[in-house]
């Protein structure tokens, strides 16, 4: 079985990178807007279904699917922000209110997917050429390489925006001191709307990557991804972007290695164990609570 280890490590890395991306969008929405997005996984699956329609049904390329999923889910995010977010944030208990609201969005998204696509499991099918790549003893599918490359590019892009542009700096500043942001002339509402929509776009795009990496999904796969995203975020430190990515990779590796030695069904459980152990040692997660340092 040790011969399989390199293969599993690569897969763990790929899955982990996607989990990291999953956590990253969750943590940005949480960090900048104090919103716990319980519908995270369901919107990811919505992205996967967009990929299903685009590739399996329409024969379009995964790249085009990513663009469509990004725009589609970003539009949902923009709509949610415009309709509900200000009201949620002004409520006396913004965190509870947003928790319940997004639980509703989660149920609605799952139900809508069930209504449109039925309860069957679906897959993203696309004829890649070549179908896989071989590196020494390790074989990795073309789809997974693409997902990894796009995942890395998106993560790098997000970090560039967050830490190197005035927009990202303003977003990080929003969590530090909202009033001061008004003082320097930032229209916080508009900044938040854009950040929210872009984060949702990334959620949709992540769904396409998940469709490429995992064999199948169905309308109620969302909860699992929501749980993984929350684990990853807590593992790395709430609201901490770097923490989310590192947390994702740790979780992905644990899950894949466990699946190899102990069987598929134990993968997630070991992930939880790792979370519990890390939280016992470092209650604020690996990178501590969000400070969004440069």
């Amino acid at each position, binding site marked *: 079985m040790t011969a399989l280890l390199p293969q599993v490590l690569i897969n763990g890395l790929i899955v982990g990178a996607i989990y990291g991306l999953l956590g990253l969008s969750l943590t940005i929405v949480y960090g900048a807007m104090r919103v716990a997005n319980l519908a995270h996984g369901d919107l990811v699956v919505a992205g996967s279904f967009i990929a299903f329609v685009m590739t399996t049904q329409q024969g379009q390329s995964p790249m085009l699917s990513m663009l469509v999923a990004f725009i589609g889910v970003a539009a949902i995010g923009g709509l949610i922000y415009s309709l509900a977010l200000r009201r949620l944030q002004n409520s006396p208990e913004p965190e509870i209110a947003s928790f319940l609201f997004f639980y509703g969005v989660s149920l609605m998204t799952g139900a809508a997917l069930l209504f449109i696509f039925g309860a069957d499991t679906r897959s993203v099918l696309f004829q890649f050429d070549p179908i896989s790549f071989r590196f020494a003893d390790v074989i990795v599918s073309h789809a997974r390489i693409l997902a990894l490359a796009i995942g890395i590019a998106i993560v790098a892009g997000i970090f560039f925006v967050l830490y190197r542009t005035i927009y990202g700096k303003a977003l990080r500043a929003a969590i*530090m001191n909202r*009033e001061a942001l008004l*003082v320097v002339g*930032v229209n916080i509402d508009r900044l938040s709307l854009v950040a929210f929509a872009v984060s949702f776009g990334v959620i949709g795009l992540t769904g396409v990557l998940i469709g490429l990496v995992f064999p199948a999904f169905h309308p109620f796969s969302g909860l699992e991804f929501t749980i993984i995203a929350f684990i990853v975020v807590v593992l790395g430190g709430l609201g901490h972007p770097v923490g989310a990515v590192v947390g994702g990779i740790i979780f992905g590796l644990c899950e894949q290695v466990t699946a190899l030695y102990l069987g598929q069904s134990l993968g997630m459980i070991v992930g939880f164990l790792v979370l519990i152990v890390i939280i016992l040692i470092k209650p604020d997660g690996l990178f501590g609570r969000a400070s969004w340092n440069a």
Partner: protein
Amino acid sequence: MSGVTPARHALRQDAVSSPAVIGELRGVSAAYFGDIHVLQGLDLTFNAGRVAGIIGPNGAGKSTVLKTFFGLLRPLEGDVLLNGQSVARTPSHAMAAMGVAYLPQGRSLFLDLTVEDNLLLGCWPIRSHRRAVRSAVQRALDIFPSLHDARRQSAGSLSGGQRRFLELARALLLEPKLLLLDEPTAMIAPRFAAEVYAMIRSIANEGVAVVLVDQNIRPCVEVSDHIYVLELGRKTAEGTAQDLQTDDALRDVIAGWLEVRGG
């Protein structure tokens, strides 16, 4: 920044021609909740090149005056004017671009960002002009050498006095026409406070209308050209610094609320 004592610059009632009016509150009433009026029919005028000092006991509404001017609070009655135009309905985030800089009471820095990034965010209204941003930040760092040395450190690592200089540097980046300062020398060492007052004077001398809310009556009066005394949201007295020394009624007012505060 030269350790000049503010007293030497004080009392500029020598001007013959009347200076341009930059900001005005006309009959302004404001409230945080319902109809509990924190400001009641206030008339205040802020002139170019002049320091307008606002003094008064705790809770008099001094900070509220600045918040109302900056659009953080909507006036229930009356009007707020900037260069003769009403800004009563202008959102706060638009004020910076209109030449109004505001230093709120308490912290207004982004403590986890670097000194340089704090300055960068101060250039938000001109963010699309990258060269102008760069030169504005560079100018600020030139004026404040201690900030230049600390430009890559987080703002949170600065001392209280240096933080205040960073706030001032950021407020001055876009060369405002009106500068609203809420207790700029609170909680900082006296040596820094003297520098801040000297800076306030020289900022006004450059033509900026400065509004100075201050608990420290003596230095505030010394640096101000015109003093407003606020009590319970009303203007109970006003006059030049000289009036304050000579006008018995005005002296009594201040002595009165100093006693209240002391007792």
